[in-house]
């Protein structure tokens, strides 16, 4: 899928999630990520980042999924890494599950998201997963 289309979906999703769509001079997702990258402040509404990625994936696929997301934190700040788990509600299959060498499987995937390009890559990854499923 074209990068521009993914960025547009991310910006639309972010405007809905952050309430920026009601503001006169709304902050874009790219700008939000820029300030997150600078400060990684513990008071930052950091979950807007994974929610934006998830909403963009749902908008681009026209489908809803079950999600779980985790914003990783070190002793002081957010690290900028996010764990995602995605489940297809129709089949209940965990799309992010991956077989490991033992009798179990890995359940989550982790993405660093500090720039808009990182978010685009995360969306592309989930779009591939949905397509493969």
């Amino acid at each position, binding site marked *: 899928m074209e990068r521009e289309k993914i960025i547009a979906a991310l910006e639309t999703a972010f405007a809905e999630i952050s309430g920026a769509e009601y503001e006169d001079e709304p902050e874009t997702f790219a700008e939000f990520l820029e300030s997150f990258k600078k400060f990684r402040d*513990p*008071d930052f509404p950091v979950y807007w980042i994974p929610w934006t990625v998830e909403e963009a994936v749902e908008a681009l696929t026209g489908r*809803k*999924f*079950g*999600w*779980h997301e*985790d914003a990783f*934190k*070190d*002793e002081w700040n957010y690290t900028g890494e996010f*764990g995602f*788990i995605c*489940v297809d*509600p129709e*089949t*209940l*299959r*965990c799309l992010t*599950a991956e*077989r490991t060498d033992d*009798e*179990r*499987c*890995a*359940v*989550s995937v982790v993405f660093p998201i500090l720039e808009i390009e990182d978010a685009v890559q995360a969306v592309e990854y989930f779009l591939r997963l949905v397509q493969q499923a």
Partner: protein
Amino acid sequence: MQLEQLPYTEEQIKQAIEEAWQELLQEADAEDYSLEEYLEHYRKYWDDPDFPNDIPEIIMRAVEEIVGRPLSWYCELVRDPAGFTGEYSFVVVDPKTQKCLTYREYTSDGVNVHRFIHVAGTVVDYEGIVRLVTKLLNQIQSALADA
């Protein structure tokens, strides 16, 4: 849900928790101390990032022991700006089928569907562990029955 609805007793759950604890002690080559002592220490220092947090491991080992097979899982230690809240959020997947065993959905208004893929609970004491193991078993058992 009540324990009476399960095909296992509270006693079996407590035994599985104790076995999980003993296993962890052995693996860590740690001196013998009780889970109650550990939990006392845990209550004081749970927000210390260096504190080894074995709670999710104890919970899932006990669940696997009762279910009778290995499961794949992810556990988030839920934090607010002030630190760890004491809440654990588990996503459990059947490694054979890769199906999510903790998925639930409901609608409050007949239109919007709320989807949850995790089961969460707060652990501040031994009873909290028993409650969370029970909650996970209830959910997993019903998901496996539907499969």
